[in-house]
């Protein structure tokens, strides 16, 4: 095997830092595939969870418990006629969803799934991330404008105003987290995403609990702003169905429309990742400093396998509970196969956890660590994803002017105040 493939495996740097284009490409592909799968899974989970909030069953027909529904939807959207309205600006209409998608996916280059599990670690990581993710608004504005239609135009204007004003509060909340990174023993702050997590490790505290309640307030500001930033309920003005039919993507259909959806969900995962990285310790497992004995390491490394085992058990339970009518035979077999697949993954993860128990067991240990990092990161992000669904099921929609009022008159002053107080407290202590 060529040297550049094997030599990286021992490295503790990201492929970008190590200058290894091959592994960087592999990581990009893994992340692209992973995010796409996450969006598909999110689609199913959102529909199911929302349905259960609303005493419905949700998708039940395509595959067992509707598991194949997202694939059926994707197929349907791809096969639909590609319509560009004759009055629309053809090229801009065509390029708008791509801008949104590009912005949403580019962000993932700096998201650290682990200390070396990222495509690259830029020293301006968080700035890059905020900058690129706010490019997403361009796609929306351009889509609304190019549609040459009233509802999309209003939707686009709403979303641009909304995103721009919430970015300010969001940015200030981020700055207060960055200020906290400079309180290391070395005294140098960092903008690097990996550096921010490592700073939390060194200081022995997630930034959400740092200078309580300062970190918590900054986190709260970010958590609210990120909902507005991604145009989700209760801030989904841009696509408020009952007001603007579908907002900025009213004129879109088929694959182009699905690109907008893909971008929206990818952006949701991206901002959740920022929140996790900045305040919730990124890839770190709970209490890495307190419970750092090898025994604890082993116990925590069992979690991924156990999680998949639990999922497999749930799927198995579904198989057992399925009515014994011959109509359900195929669904039953399908769900059993799915449960078996999950069980296999669980087994594999447990084997890796056992094999990589001691740090000197080489590749297995490295694998084991990597799985642990990604697992805790994804777990934290999925909590946010669940919150997104929960918000949507519970709250009415804010009106546009109220949204702006909250953004400028409530959140901006609070985040500014938190930033100043954090800086002062940081200097004193």
């Amino acid at each position: 095997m060529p040297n550049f493939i094997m030599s990286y495996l021992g490295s503790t740097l990201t492929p970008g830092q190590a200058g290894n284009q091959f592994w960087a490409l592999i990581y990009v592909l893994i992340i692209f595939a992973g995010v796409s799968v996450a969006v598909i899974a999110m689609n199913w989970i959102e529909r199911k969870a929302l349905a259960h909030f609303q005493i419905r069953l949700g998708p039940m027909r395509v595959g067992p418990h509707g598991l194949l529904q997202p694939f059926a939807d994707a197929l349907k959207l791809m096969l639909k006629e590609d319509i560009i309205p004759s009055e629309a600006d053809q090229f801009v209409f065509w390029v708008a969803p791509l801008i949104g998608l590009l912005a949403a996916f580019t962000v993932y280059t700096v998201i650290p799934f682990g200390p070396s599990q990222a495509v690259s670690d830029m020293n301006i990581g968080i700035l890059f991330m905020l900058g690129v993710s706010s490019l997403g608004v361009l796609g929306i504005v351009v889509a609304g404008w190019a549609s040459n239609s009233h509802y999309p135009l209003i939707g686009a204007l709403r979303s641009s105003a909304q995103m721009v004003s919430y970015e300010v509060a969001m940015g200030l909340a981020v700055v207060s987290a960055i200020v906290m990174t400079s309180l290391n023993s070395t005294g140098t702050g960092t903008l690097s995403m990996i550096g921010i997590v490592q700073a939390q490790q060194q200081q022995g505290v997630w930034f959400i609990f740092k200078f309580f309640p300062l970190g918590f307030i900054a986190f709260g500001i970010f958590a609210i702003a990120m909902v507005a930033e991604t145009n989700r309920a209760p801030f989904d003005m841009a696509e408020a169905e009952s007001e603007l039919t579908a907002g900025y993507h009213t004129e879109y259909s088929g694959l182009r429309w699905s690109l907008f959806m893909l971008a929206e969900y990818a952006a949701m995962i991206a901002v959740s990742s920022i929140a996790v990285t900045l305040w919730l310790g990124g890839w770190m497992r709970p209490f890495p400093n307190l419970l750092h004995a090898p025994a604890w390491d082993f116990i925590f490394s069992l979690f991924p396998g156990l999680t998949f085992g639990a999922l497999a058990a749930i799927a198995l339970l579904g198989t057992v509970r399925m009515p014994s009518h011959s109509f359900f035979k195929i669904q039953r077999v399908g769900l059993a196969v799915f449960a078996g697949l999950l069980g296999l993954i669980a087994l594999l993860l447990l084997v890796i956890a056992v094999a990589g128990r001691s740090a000197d067991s080489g590749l297995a240990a490295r694998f084991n660590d990597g799985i642990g990092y990604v697992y805790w990161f994804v777990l934290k992000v999925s909590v946010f994803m669940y919150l997104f669904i929960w918000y949507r099921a519970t709250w009415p929609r804010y009106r546009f002017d109220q949204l702006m009022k909250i953004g400028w008159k409530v959140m901006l002053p609070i985040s500014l105040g938190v930033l100043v107080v954090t800086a002062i407290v940081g200097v004193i202590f």
Partner: protein
Amino acid sequence: MNDRLDPMSNLDLDAPDTYLDSNELIINMGPQHPATHGVLRVILKLDGEKVLGTECVIGYLHRGVEKIAENRTYTMFNPYVDRMDYVAAVSNGLGYCEAVEKLLNVEAPARAKYIRVILTELNRIASHQLWLGTHALDIGAMTPLFYTFRDREEILKIFEKYCGARLTTHAFRIGGCQYETYAGFEKDVKNFLTFVAPKIDEYETLLTTNRIWLERTKNVGVISAADAIALGVTGPVLRASGVKWDLRKAQPYAAYADFDFEIPIGENGDTYDRYLVRMAEMRQSLRIIEQAVNGIPEGPIMGKVPKVIKPPVGEIYHSIEAPKGELGYFIVSDGSTQPYRIRVRPPSFVNLQALDIMVRGLLVADVIAVIGTLDIVLGEVDR
């Protein structure tokens, strides 16, 4: 009200296509729109998001119900009225039957009146539940819709058991009721009362003190009592403005004089008060149903009505308090078996007039909230 809006007046069709000029934006909301409750078309004149004026265009669901009446006998026309306000079909039937009874000068027996009250009040709850679900959905809260539909289902089941139909019930006949109550009717109704009372509280936990709900509904779509009276607005919309006017009390019909209930009123005449009034009305309806089902008398269910209904020459106006307001029937008889003319005074149609003064100066999102709070049914507006 005098400066009626000409939607085309500001549109220069030869002007180059640009949004950069300062012209107002004219937007067609509807007839195909997710939140105009059917096929209402509202032409909005917007300055940015601010509403400068509205123009309602109706008639997309016009089926000529009043004209149909002239070619049907009184009995044959009875099912047609169900198709006007299809979410409160029982009330429509009650109004029509009572109007014809008044014209014939017959009275329904006491038992029939009680059955009528029970079914009509059940229907009022069903109508308000549907209103609540769709209104909340318009404002962006998805979940109440499913809760209200779950509970409305129980009412529809009672209707189905009683007369075989769920929505367009055709529950009453001129002179009384066609069907005796089924075995277990009273038990079903009582079960429903105990079932739905906590459910109404459940809706309120989702909305009444919800901060976003308050911000979206308080001081939105305010209409003063004077304006409401001047426009002929009735029902919960009028009562939320502080006018204690309910035909069930003001001119009791059916058996309403026998029951003890209150008329909930609001203070500010805003969307939130209308919400509270309707929620309180559901609870008052429960009270009425409880009294009616406990005191339901024995006896016949049909009055002395001739086989062929041929009212004497004359005219009559009879109105009842439908869930949405005053529902009146003006019937002119020329002494034949068919009405010479029937004119319906539908509450939705009259209440819809208030839309313009309620939304002027508000934002687009408020137009949706106000259309929802007016609780219109286009089948009734267009007839």
